[in-house]
């Protein structure tokens, strides 16, 4: 069986297992990928929601009388177990397999995989999109996901209240739409609905214009997993000595990584497309410690 078909099967199996709540299986685990607990069929909790809840409005409870009491109240008021739980879950998975979760498990990754044919065609027919994708600034734009994680998931909930989950486009896709379809007339849009709807439309536009656009630029779960590529046991390695620099691997890479020069790139989702594409078989999956 072809390698990429195996990946499709893995993604479908994980999509189904993420939705076993439809059969009544609800657990207290956090998903190690990006999926919404508000989905009527969800089995587990969104790691980002757990992070938001853990720091929710902690700033209001802090003692500001002196520095010592400030730090002691900070330590006391953050719900550490709820803060650490999703990070450690993602960390354990990330230490073993890096961002392979994004390429092999995440349902939103599967969605973007199915839409990826559109941005590839657009890039071929409208060269400006390909140029934008290769612009030097594009690499810096990838840091936005870290800003989203720190600001919208942690800092703003710490000071003001829920933010990311209020505007999350995946919440609209997997929560709002199914719930409105299953329970018509029971709910009405709240004040964040239209903002979230605009973001959802931008999300859809993004994934149809840029392959894996969400994973590259905005996914906070990807931002947590990405650093673990640096130390993960599983990695994609390139034999640079034998590489003929045909660059075919980079052309097929959904994350637009410069594969021949890649070494434990935080953006690599270990999808294996470059492994399949290399005519010389010089790109391999490795359980490595290099």
């Amino acid at each position, binding site marked *: 069986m072809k390698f990429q078909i195996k990946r499709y099967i893995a993604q479908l199996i994980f999509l189904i297992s993420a939705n076993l709540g439809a059969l009544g299986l609800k657990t*207290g685990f956090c998903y190690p990928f990006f999926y919404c607990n508000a989905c009527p069929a969800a089995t587990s909790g969104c790691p980002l929601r757990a992070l938001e809840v853990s720091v929710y409005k902690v700033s209001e409870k802090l003692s500001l009388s002196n520095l010592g009491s400030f730090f002691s109240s900070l330590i006391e008021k953050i719900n550490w177990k709820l803060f650490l739980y999703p990070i450690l879950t993602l960390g354990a998975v990330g230490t073993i397999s890096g961002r392979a979760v994004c390429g092999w498990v995440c349902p939103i990754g599967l969605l973007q995989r199915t839409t990826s044919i559109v941005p590839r065609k657009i890039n071929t027919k409208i060269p400006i999109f390909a140029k934008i994708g290769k612009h030097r600034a594009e690499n810096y734009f990838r840091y936005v996901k870290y800003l989203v994680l720190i600001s919208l998931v942690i800092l703003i909930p710490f000071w003001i209240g829920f933010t990311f989950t209020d505007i999350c486009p995946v919440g609209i896709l997997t929560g709002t739409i199914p719930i409105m379809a299953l329970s018509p007339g029971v709910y009405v849009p*709240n004040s964040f609905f239209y903002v979230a709807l605009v973001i959802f439309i931008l999300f859809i536009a993004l994934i149809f214009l840029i392959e894996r656009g969400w994973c590259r630029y905005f996914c906070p779960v990807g931002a947590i997993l990405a650093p673990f590529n640096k130390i993960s046991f599983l990695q994609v390695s390139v034999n640079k000595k034998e590489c003929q620099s045909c660059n075919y691997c980079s052309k097929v890479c959904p994350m637009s990584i410069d594969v021949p020069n890649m070494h434990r790139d935080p953006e690599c989702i270990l999808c294996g497309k470059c492994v399949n594409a290399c005519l010389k078989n010089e790109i391999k999956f490795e359980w490595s410690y290099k």
Partner: protein
Amino acid sequence: MKKFLAIQITALILISGTLGGVLYYTDAYQEVYSRIVSIICLSCIKLDPVISLGFRFDTANGKDHPEFIKDLLDKGPIFIDFGTDACLYCDYMDPLIKQIFNVSFEKEDLFNTTINFNGTEITFIHINEDWATGEYKDLESYYDVDGDNAVPMFTTITLGYHHGFINPFYNTVYGILNKDYSDGQRINLLKNIIQDSIDLYNENRPGYTHD
């Protein structure tokens, strides 16, 4: 090479060990289940429930009303304010609730008290689901008519005539009641529900007995 392997193994042991510790020694698993997975997250779905002003007899979980609620109904109608620690709309509604009942409380408080509402004694109960214990812990399951564990949830319990008997009769509303309402309209709506419950109570109290 060996140094990097040592780093990898140390990281894996530290992370998975701490994760195991968090799961084994704390209630993080239960907390994610009860506060995130088992409830419908209204902010995640960007929706509010449509309010239903109807009173009803049958509890949401199909069980008989709790004994201590029946006991409290001997004294007068009951108003229950359900919330959680992390609840945006609780933060919004709590000041309005305090204004209506002229009570003060902190978010984590769990208490019941008797208050005077327009000359009638009613029982006010404040429950923070994250801290609820004892008989208060499962109370939400009796009155959460939408079954979503959504908070804030406001339940007013009174008495009503039901197939020849006087039984507990309750009304539950959620969230900010109606997104298009002003604060004044929200207060009026809750006051109207409470006034209805008082009228029903006064009408039916003479026929109320419970074992």
